[in-house]
């Protein structure tokens, strides 16, 4: 692997997203949604406004779980298949670069664009929290932002992997939406359904560990178990074993969700 080539590819991807105002548009979406949800997140409990950093994070967890995977999948689904369909992939692959360098360069460039957009949005809420509560608790918020970035990178990795295996952009976009539905909406329902159907007699102990098979759940555990208030808010203390409460372990699980799809993509992306 040659860093120069990877950086050249990454820089082009990032510049593309900056020039076509993708980063700006997504950053605005994040700013608006995160500010609104941070302010109105407690409405169900009959109050609006910033109550605490913990409650703000609790409100933003749902936003991130719905929005970040979708944005990451839409950003990366055509990374390779798009170039192939347009006809520029052959030109790139005839250059003195490896397929791995092309894949990694594209991924890093897209990751930088996603991170920029997310940080711009989430930093706006961070600024408001700082004004309201001072520095105390910003450490937790920084952890939340970091885990949100990891979640985005994991779904971006999935998107790049499907952009390698998909035959065309249409199929790739369909697969991206299916992945979003599966991980964000269906996966937990399936687990809960299985648990309820079996009356908890089969696999009850394995159930919490199955959550590791979904990066969105890893993100949820990472944030819920990092804060006491949130554990009680979600009422999950009893079902998730203490082993999964280790943030570093969850961070490693999230890193695995970044590396594994990229590894699969690299394996499939052969001449």
């Amino acid at each position, binding site marked *: 692997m*040659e860093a*120069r*080539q990877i950086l*050249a*590819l990454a820089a*082009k991807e990032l510049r*593309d997203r900056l*020039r*076509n105002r993708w980063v700006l548009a997504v950053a605005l979406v994040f700013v608006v949604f995160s500010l609104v949800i941070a302010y109105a997140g407690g409405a169900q409990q009959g109050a609006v406004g910033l109550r605490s950093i913990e409650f703000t994070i609790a409100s933003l967890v749902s936003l991130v779980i719905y929005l970040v995977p979708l944005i990451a999948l839409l950003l990366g689904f055509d990374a390779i298949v798009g170039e192939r369909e*347009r*006809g*520029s992939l*052959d*030109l*790139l*692959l*005839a*250059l*003195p*670069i490896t397929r791995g360098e092309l894949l990694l360069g594209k991924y890093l460039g897209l990751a930088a664009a996603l991170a920029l957009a997310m940080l711009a949005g989430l930093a706006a809420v961070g600024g408001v929290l700082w004004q309201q509560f001072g520095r105390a608790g910003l450490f937790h918020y920084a952890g939340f932002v970091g885990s949100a970035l990891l979640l985005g990178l994991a779904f971006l990795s999935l998107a790049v992997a499907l952009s390698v295996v998909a035959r065309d952009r249409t199929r790739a976009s369909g697969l991206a939406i299916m992945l979003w539905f599966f991980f964000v909406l269906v996966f937990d329902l399936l687990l809960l359904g299985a648990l309820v159907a079996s009356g908890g007699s089969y696999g009850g102990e394995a159930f919490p560990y199955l959550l590791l098979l979904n990066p969105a759940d890893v993100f949820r555990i990472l944030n819920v178990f990092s804060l006491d208030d949130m554990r009680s808010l979600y009422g999950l203390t009893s079902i998730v074993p203490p082993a999964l409460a280790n943030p570093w372990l969850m961070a490693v699980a999230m890193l695995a969700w970044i590396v594994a799809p990229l590894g699969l993509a690299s394996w499939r992306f*052969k*001449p």
Partner: protein
Amino acid sequence: MRADFVAGAAAAAPPADPAADTPAIRLRGVHKHYGALHAVDGIDLDIRRGEVFGLIGHNGAGKSTLFKMMLGLVAPTAGQIHIAGAPVSGRGFRAVRRGIGYLPENVVLWDNLSGLETLRFFARLKDVPAAECPAALDRVGLAHAANRPVREYSKGMRQRLGFAQALLGAPQVLFLDEPTTGLDPQAIRAFYDTLATLRGQGVTMVLSSHILAELQARVDRLAVLSAGRVQALGSVQQLRELHELPLAVALRLAPTDLPAAEATLATLRQALPAGLPGVAGLAPQRTADGLQLHCPRAAKMALLQALAPLGPRLLDVLITEPSLEDLFFANAGHTRPPQEPR
């Protein structure tokens, strides 16, 4: 490969430079199978250094697959491909590819980059100094549009920009797939002028084109591909001679002299050996200003001698060599489409 249609191998003079002994491109037993489909079905080919080599074939003949395999984009099912003595894939691929330039059939670049930014991007990936980019743009006549976004480029300008990126880094082997697609006549001439300059610098070029008339005068040798195999290989002239394609002859005569000329040709037909290939083509057809016929190459002098007695009644004689198109249709296993009457 049919041995009787392979020309030129024996005619090649021994090279003085030992390095020149290694072909620029060597293919040995190259196959590419997609299930039951044999896209490329056993190709052995040497393309010499500094040679301009044409690759022609109808759609589905295996041309594109062969191009992609030579570039290392598609792995052969069997066989080996070497560029300048090194395998096109494997550990040394980077050095090999730095010496290669590629212009694909449909040049697709990135609309939001300017022409100069596009070249700088390719230069970084090729490890070529960015300072070369303005000169490369100038070489293809795009210096004036260097800072315009590619989305504002015409198809011909994009093609020229694609050619500029292929020239970055002074490649020793150029692969040009349908290179004149979308170019206007002036740009086509400029393109082939550049190719002539590169040829003078010893650059090896592999060209494919459906516009056979363009290739005819510009390639040193060519291969006619059909059904994944090389059906014919050699220079245009060698293939003409080997294939014994008849010459096209047009005789300009006054209408009153047509019967005399037809009688002369009938006598010639009877005088020639009955087994001579193509002798039936000597039966003339009347045209608006005389006669046209197809004469076996071996009977050309006999034809001229037979026509001599017509003297001044023969207003003009036009003898045309078979074109590359004729050779293509003769070798690619397809019948030539019917010609419009003149």
